[in-house]
């Protein structure tokens, strides 16, 4: 297993946090992992993004030109990253924020209304957990129970009041991921 | 004891302070660096702190001060003595740390370091020698050169229209909240030298009491680069420097006040 995942969206969508959560979870499962904020060619321009590499082997480059997975939170990020995903890769898209749907036909594409669903649950900021839940259905990089465990640990006592809503969002993401059959 | 023995019995009235080494200095005749060194050394002797004092020398005429003081010393880069002294003091808080700096070192290239050291209330003492000229490099205009004063880089006299005005450091540093004791004295006659020594003592006592930054600015002579005899230089300080740089106490923090009363 070796996946290079880009999480991309606006600042405030919890993009960096959800990437770090995946990294912490991978570490908890004793996998090799790197997390970097937006660096590398063609990876700039007003949006928040991070790259997570998860692997069974020691990781060489933490940067990549063609990620195997892109988790896209907004339309500008779709425009930027859709073309970069490696053929056969996975594109998880927050359909609530899209102007145009993705056009690639050589990718697994999962569309889900993450922002709308997060609002329904009660906090627009938990769209990141919905996106992560859906992604893990299509790329089982880590165990969902570990994600939940690590999430609770990372929120700690100071943010314990955010546990329930984040876990609910994660569950909804999993459900949405299961019902949203990937179109290839 | 015979009458003759009684007559020749030694009574020491003047000697080299232990804090000064028995070496000739390189200073010019009539230069007041020697006096400034001596009063610092006498004060350190009297306070009994020589063995726990670390001096930081500047770049300028007193660049070799560490060769004259009988104590641990470092030689800083130009203007950086207060930063270096800060580093020393923070890891050796029980030691007495002082910088000895000239006007080019402190008021030009090192003005940032001295201001921030003062504003941090760094618990060190600075002896500031203001002789209104760059001595070591041969008499160029200093930030403290007086209006109209001729130097090798203000050949027709300092023109404030193009070179700005002399900086009054004591007044400036007195404005820093972290300063505990900031005064200006002069070395041009015995009375002023005695007053200068008292101020140096208070400055070190303030440091020993942990009260914050202390500085004694000393109006000093440079007969060589001023092109004067030693007596003329002393008179020049009195007639020209003192009016521009008034002597006095510019900052005496409340906590320092009791030190002034103690003799």
């Amino acid at each position, binding site marked *: 297993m070796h996946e290079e995942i880009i999480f991309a969206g606006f600042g405030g969508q919890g993009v960096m946090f959800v990437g*770090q959560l995946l*990294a*912490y979870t991978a*570490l908890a499962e004793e996998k*090799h*992992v*790197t*997390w*970097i*904020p937006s*660096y*590398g*060619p063609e990876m700039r321009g007003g949006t928040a993004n991070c790259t997570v590499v998860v692997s069974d082997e020691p*990781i*060489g*480059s*933490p*940067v*990549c*030109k*063609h990620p195997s997975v892109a988790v896209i939170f907004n339309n500008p990020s779709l425009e930027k990253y859709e073309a970069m995903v490696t053929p056969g890769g996975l594109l998880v898209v927050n359909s609530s924020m899209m102007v145009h749907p993705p056009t690639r036909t050589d990718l697994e594409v999962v569309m889900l209304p993450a922002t709308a669903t997060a609002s329904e649950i009660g906090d627009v900021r938990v769209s990141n957990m919905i996106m992560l839940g859906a992604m893990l259905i299509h790329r089982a990089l880590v165990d969902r129970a570990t994600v939940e465990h690590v999430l609770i640990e990372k929120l700690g006592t100071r943010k314990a009041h955010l546990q329930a809503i984040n876990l609910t969002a994660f569950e909804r993401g999993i459900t949405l991921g299961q019902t949203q059959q990937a179109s290839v | 004891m015979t009458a003759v023995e009684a007559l020749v019995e030694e009574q020491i009235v003047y000697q080299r302070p232990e804090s000064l080494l028995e070496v000739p200095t390189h200073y010019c005749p009539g230069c007041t660096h020697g006096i400034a060194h001596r009063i610092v050394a006498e004060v350190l002797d009297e306070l009994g702190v*020589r*063995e*726990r*004092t*670390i001096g*930081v*020398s500047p770049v300028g005429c007193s*660049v*070799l001060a*560490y*060769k004259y*003081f*009988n*104590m*641990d*010393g*470092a*030689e*800083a*880069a130009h203007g*950086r003595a207060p*930063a*270096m*002294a*800060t*580093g*020393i*003091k*923070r*890891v*050796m808080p029980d*030691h007495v740390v002082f910088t000895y700096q000239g006007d080019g070192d402190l008021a030009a290239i090192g003005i*940032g*370091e001295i*201001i*921030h050291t003062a504003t*941090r209330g760094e618990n060190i003492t600075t002896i500031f020698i203001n002789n209104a000229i760059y001595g070591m490099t041969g008499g160029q205009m200093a930030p403290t050169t007086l209006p109209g004063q001729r130097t090798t880089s203000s050949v027709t006299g300092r023109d404030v229209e193009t070179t700005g005005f002399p900086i009054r450091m004591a007044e400036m540093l007195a404005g820093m909240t972290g300063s505990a004791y900031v005064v200006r004295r002069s070395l041009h006659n015995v009375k002023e030298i005695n007053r200068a020594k008292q101020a140096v003592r208070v400055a070190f006592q303030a440091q020993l009491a942990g009260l914050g930054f202390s500085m004694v600015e000393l109006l000093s002579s440079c007969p060589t680069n001023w092109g004067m005899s030693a007596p003329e230089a002393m008179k020049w300080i009195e007639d020209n420097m003192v009016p521009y740089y008034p002597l006095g106490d510019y900052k005496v923090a409340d906590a320092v006040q009791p030190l002034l009363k103690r003799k």
Partner: protein
Amino acid sequence: MAVELLKGNEAIAEAAIRAGLEAYFGYPITPQTEILEHMARRMPDLGRAFIQAESEVASINMVYGAACTGARAMTSSSSPGISLMQEGFSYIACSEVPCVVVDVMRGGPGLGNIDPSQADYFQVTRSAGHGDFHAIVLAPASVQEAIDLMVEAFDLAEKYRTLVFVVADGLLGQMMEPAQLPPMKPVHKNRPDWALTGAVNREPNIITSLELNAPALEEVNLRLQAKLAEIRKHEQRWAELWTDDAKLVVVGYGMSGRIAQTAVKQARREGMKVGLLRPISLWPFPEKRLSTLADQVDAFLVIEMNAGQMVDDVRLSAGGQVPVSFYGRMGGVVPVPEEIYHEITTLYEKLTSGE
């Protein structure tokens, strides 16, 4: 100690603290500010010295002062700040005071940008200040290696009474990956005999870089050069992979070496006899190993995030025996494995088509 997910900059700071750092002085500059912030949080709690100085010039001179007392002292900065510190480096080198400096390099010249770069190679290995001197320069390629080298940096600084740079690029500084911190060492209270500790029952100690007598200053220089020769002899460090039968060896340090590793691995999978040499000490440069490899390989390919700086050292080490090619990105652009792989295959085809 458990394996934790650590950010490069924070790991560097914490490793220094655990190595017994007694005083930190610094000034904020991206992309290394997390080091300063970590120190601000931790050092006062531990009763150790921390100052956010008014400039990099002041920072390095505070380090110089603290180090004169024999305390473990350091600063950290990024490229423009390192330029400002050069005055202090030169004084520190001449007066032989152990100090550690971290440079998290960013894009330049000038104000440049805050993206990753390796363009300070010449500066730290060749020209860290006026006069004849070199500092030891260590270049980690992972968060774990950054931790290990920080600890080692203090030991080397004290062993040789020298300035030691740990150089990373902004990418390593900002990257998070699993790593293990060392156990906490207390600050050492035993001061070396040269240190400024107060002249109690001994002659005064003087720390100075001034020597007005030319023959005497030449003596100082000869002593410094003899020390540097010792360092050059004993402290060359590097890592290598798949070099045994390599026809082409890719040379890169820090993150470029690590990114190149992915490309070299790919080339190996394709059956190309390509190896990787990653210098860990940039000064002293691992010239002995490079020189030996030059007898074996057909070519070197140097990868850097600059216009070609370390490539000079590779050419000197290769001594004209084999061609040395270069591929670099500048201005904060990080090369990706695909680009390096392309360079490898192009060069490798040329090498093998000649057979």
